[in-house]
Structure formats: C-alpha cells, structure tokens
C-alpha cells in the first residue's frame, strides 16, 4: 500500500498470508474471558471473578514483559529492576490522583512520563555498566524505593499503601467491571505488542539486534549505540510504568512494597525467560501460563501454593531451554534468535 501525504511517500507492504496467526491469537485473547465465564467456571468450579482476575494478572505480566524484552534486546543488558518502574508508575498515578485530583486519563501520560524521565536519568548505566554490574544496579533500585517508602511513609504509606485512588471502571456489577478491566488490559497489551512488533521488524529493531549481539560490531557498522540504548531504555521504562498506572486504578490503591518484592520480580523474569529468548509473542503465552498456574496452585495447594508454583516453573526452565516460543520455533524456523548474556565483557 502506498500513501502520498504531506509531500512524502509512505509505503507499507501488506502481506495477508502472514495475518492468520496474529488474527487467531487476537481472537483467542478476546474470546478467552467469555469462554472462561460461560464454560470453565462450571467445569473447574472456580469463581469467575477469581479466574478473570488471574487473566488480568496475566495481562499485567505481559504489559511488563513485552517492553522488557524490547529493553533487553535494545540495550544488550538484562534488567533486574522492571518492578521498580512498575512502582514508579503506580506511585505517580496514586499520588497525583489522591493529592491533586487527577483523573486516570491524566495520570496515564503522567505515569508514562515519570517512568520515562527516571529511565532517561538512569539510562547512562546502560552504557557505563556492563555485565553483572548492570544487573546489580537494577536489582538494587527496587530496594532503594522500598526503603524510601518506609522512610517517607507519610507520603508513600509504606505497607498500607495509598488508598482512595479513583477506579478506572465502576459500574456496580463486580463481574462486569472485571470483564471490562480485562478488555482494557488486553487492549493495552495488544497496543504494546503491535508497537514492539513494528519496532522489532524495523531498521531500528535490526540495529537493536546488532547491539544485543555485539556492541563493537554495531559501532563498526556506524550504529549510534549510545543513542539507541538511551532511547530504548527511556521509552521501555515509561511503558513498564504504565503497568503501575493500571494496577493503581484497577485496585483503587497502590502499595509499593507488595510490587517491589522479589517474588514479583521472579514472576516477571520467568515470564520473559519462559517466553523464549527475546520472543515477544512468547511473553504473552508465558504470562497467561504463569498467571493461570498461579491461580490453579492457589486454589489447590493453599499455603504451599507458592512452593508448588515455583517448583513447576523451575522444572519448565529445565525442559524448555528455548521457552514456549522455542516449541513453535522448532516448526517455524526463524534465523535470528537474540542471545541473552549477562557476563558479557
């Protein structure tokens, strides 16, 4: 398709033969809550609200995991602090709406910009810090915010959090509300997925791939490594902060210490690793798998649910060396697989 606009020519290659799988995927995701509501609840005996909440949690994991994959590839570094940006977004939304009466429509860009701004401030570490040191800095960031929330508990509310955040949706019908929340969250995931996919297929995405493989080679090709790293880290940090915005307006409060916990970090990391090496679509599959497994273990194993959940996920790490996407890739071979290395020099 060729569009002539504003004196410029834009061409877009439309290839309907590649549309089948994305269409099937989107239809499945859109039909999932309705199917769950009408059929699965009767079979498994799980309350629809709990099940739909699990699907929303899957979308939250996907909202974080999708930009995180882009960040890992574009910076060539593995961040262990995505939940820090989730908390930044959540606190921005909660504080602005509670103290200044901002509506969710206003807190959304505010959360994104706050996440992006802090990401921009921290972005030099993607250039300066290498290997394990980058992991460590990003691992320590959530601890700093954690301590800050306890030190200034008058502002952040420590473990009680910030209550009274306006809800995104309130119709009075709990099931309907949660159904709408699902569709809002899946819409956000699909938008993120679309942008990520476009970026990965673009010239910019190609340069990101080269940076991930070898920075020296990228430099020798004339790629502005520092610029790409800073832009990628800044924008993906903002995108991750949007997940915090959603959490604050979905729960009607934001409690940082809950989301700054290592157990949440490991769920995010497992979402990306079990998704497959740098595979964005795999992240969606693993997010749904992990959230469903978390709900099933919670109902079946009670107090031992976390233990059982992590044992199963650990076993999956053993048997799926390329994650869920690897199962698909075996049939549909893809030439480029990003290598995720931490001990790189």
């Amino acid at each position, binding site marked *: 398709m060729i569009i002539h606009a504003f004196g410029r020519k834009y061409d877009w290659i439309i290839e309907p033969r590649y549309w089948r799988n994305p269409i099937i995927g989107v239809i499945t995701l859109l039909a999932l809550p309705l199917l769950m509501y009408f059929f699965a609840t009767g079979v498994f005996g799980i309350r629809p609200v709990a099940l739909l909440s699990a699907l929303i949690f899957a979308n939250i994991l996907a909202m974080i995991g999708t930009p995180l994959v882009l960040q890992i590839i574009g910076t060539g570094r*593995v961040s*262990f602090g995505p939940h820090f940006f989730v908390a930044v977004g959540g606190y921005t939304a909660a504080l602005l709406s509670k103290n200044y009466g901002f509506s969710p429509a206003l807190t959304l860009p505010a959360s994104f910009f706050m996440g992006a701004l802090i990401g921009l401030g921290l972005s*030099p*570490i993607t250039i*300066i*810090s*290498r290997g*394990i*040191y980058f*992991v*460590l*800095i990003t*691992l*320590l*960031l959530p*601890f*700093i915010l954690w*301590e*800050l929330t*306890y*030190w200034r508990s008058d502002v952040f509310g420590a473990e009680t959090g910030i209550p009274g955040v306006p809800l995104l949706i309130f119709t009075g019908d709990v099931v309907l509300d949660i159904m709408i929340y699902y569709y809002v969250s899946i819409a956000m995931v699909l938008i993120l997925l679309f942008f990520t996919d476009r970026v990965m297929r673009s010239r910019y995405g190609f340069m990101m791939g080269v940076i991930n493989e070898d920075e020296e080679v990228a430099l020798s090709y004339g790629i502005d490594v520092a610029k790409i790293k800073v832009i990628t880290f800044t924008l993906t940090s903002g995108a991750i902060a949007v997940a915090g915005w959603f959490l604050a307006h979905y729960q009607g409060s934001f409690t940082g210490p809950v989301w700054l916990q*290592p*157990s949440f*970090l*490991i769920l995010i*990391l*497992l979402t*990306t*690793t079990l998704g497959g090496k740098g595979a964005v679509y795999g992240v969606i599959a693993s997010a749904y798998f992990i959230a469903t497994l978390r709900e099933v273990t919670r109902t079946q194993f009670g*107090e*031992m649910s*976390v*233990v059982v959940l*992590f*044992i199963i*996920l*650990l076993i999956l*790490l*053993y048997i799926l*060396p390329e994650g869920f996407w690897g199962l698909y890739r075996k049939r549909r071979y893809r030439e480029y697989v990003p290598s*995720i*290395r*931490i*001990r790189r020099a």
Partner: protein
Amino acid sequence: MLDVAALIFSYTFIFGSLYLGIALGFTIITGVLRIFHLGYGAIFLIAAYGTWMFWKDVGFGFIESIVLSFALVALFSFLIYQVVIKKFWEMEDYLLAALIAVFIIIEELVNYAYPEIVGVYLPTTIIEGSISIGPASIPGQLAATSVIAILMVICYLLIFTKTKTGLIMRAISQDIFASQLVGVNFDRMFIVAMILASLPPAIIMLLIAPIWALNPFIGWPLFTYAIVVSVLGGLGNLRGTIMASYIIGFIHAAVGFSLDPRLMLLASLVVVVAVLVFRPEGLARAETIW
C-alpha cells in the same frame, strides 16, 4: 558530640565486622565461580531453621543440631551447584532466575513449616548483657559476633594464601581456562568453594539469632547487606569486601546515630549505586579473589 562520635566509631567496627561475615561467603562464590548466587539468602534460613528443626522436631541435642544444620547447608550448596549452576552455566538469565526461584521456594517452605508465630529462638548467646566502650554501650553478643567474623576472615585468608586448595581457587578466580590447561579439576573446586562459602553465613546467622528477631523472611535483608558490601568491594575481591564492609558500617553508624536510623540502608544503597555508576568495578577490581 563526643558521645555520638564514640558510638559511630564503635558501631562502625561492629556493623562492619558483621557485614563482613555476612558477605564473606558471597564474595568467595562470586570470586571463584564468577557467578552471582542469588540463592545465597537461603543459607541463612537453612542454618537457623535447620538447627531448630533438628533440635525441637527431630529431638537431637542442641550442639548436634548445629552440626547437622551445617551439614544441611553444605548439602544445599552441593545440590545448588550440581542441579542449578552446572545446568545453567551458559544460560545466565536462566541461572539467575532459577537461583532466585530456589531461594523463594526455601523461604516459603520455611514459612509454611515455621511461621513467625512459632517463635523460633536459638540460645546461641556467647556474651550476655552489654559491653561499655567509653560512652558507647554495645550488646555483648554483637561484639562476640564481630570478633568471630574477623577470625573467620583470617582463617579464610590463610586457606587462600597458605594451602594448595586456596592456591588453586585463586588460580581459577584469575583465569578459569588457564587453570583448566594446567590440569585443575575446576568442577571439584567449585563444589569445595560452594561448601566453604556456605559456612560463614551459617555461623553468622546462628550468632545473631538470639538478638535479631528470627522470621522466615530474614534471608532477603541479610542477602541485601551481602550484595551491597560485595558490590562496593568489587564483586569477588576479598580485599575490596573488607574495605567495603567497614565503609558500609561507617555509613550505617553515622546515618543511624546522627540522622535517622530508618535511613541507614537507604543511604548505603544510594552510595553503592553511585559508586557503581562512576566506578563500576567497585573499590577493588575483581581480577582475583585475593
């Protein structure tokens, strides 16, 4: 003013030595194996709750329970190496995720078996009451823990500098491939290093158990101290770790006694992140463990 200065001076030594003991094992693992052992915090839990389990639930004597808990810690380290580290050696993202997962599994298992309401208490007190140094009053058990931590570091330094095993470990920490060329069985040495590294945190945990309220989630805060100290010290360099321990001890003592005790960890975290940004290799470059 003099009182505050005396307190800061005394507690710099106390905190510094304590953090040195906590971070010693972590530094050894990072220095020899060149991996970031995110499951390190589980060792504290296994040492404390393992002792309690053998003592109260199985019915062994207290001293036997301590010995058995050390054996359990060594077994845990051995299994972590064989089952997790060896398997994911070349897949670092998987390795780190798997190590944190193991830590959380252990934490939740301990929380299931011995939740906080059980009131786990280990009578490992060596010195009752307080010791007065000028105007500063220090809990005797903390002072004893500090001295033992320093003795442990001296013992480990002797192992690294005076024994053949230590020499091999230093060789591995300098260049793993070169050490392989001269016939080092690095697989066996890694297991020895893992087991050696698991003892200091276990000993420190048992010593602070009577004065530090035990709970199933104590592993993370202690692990945070180990990370902060090791990172500032240069990840895997014992000289750097010793310097970093006392710097962090000083920051904690100074902030705690002159500003706000709630700011102690926050202040050290900010300092460490700042150091990492401007001097990523830490205080001492981790080219060798010593």
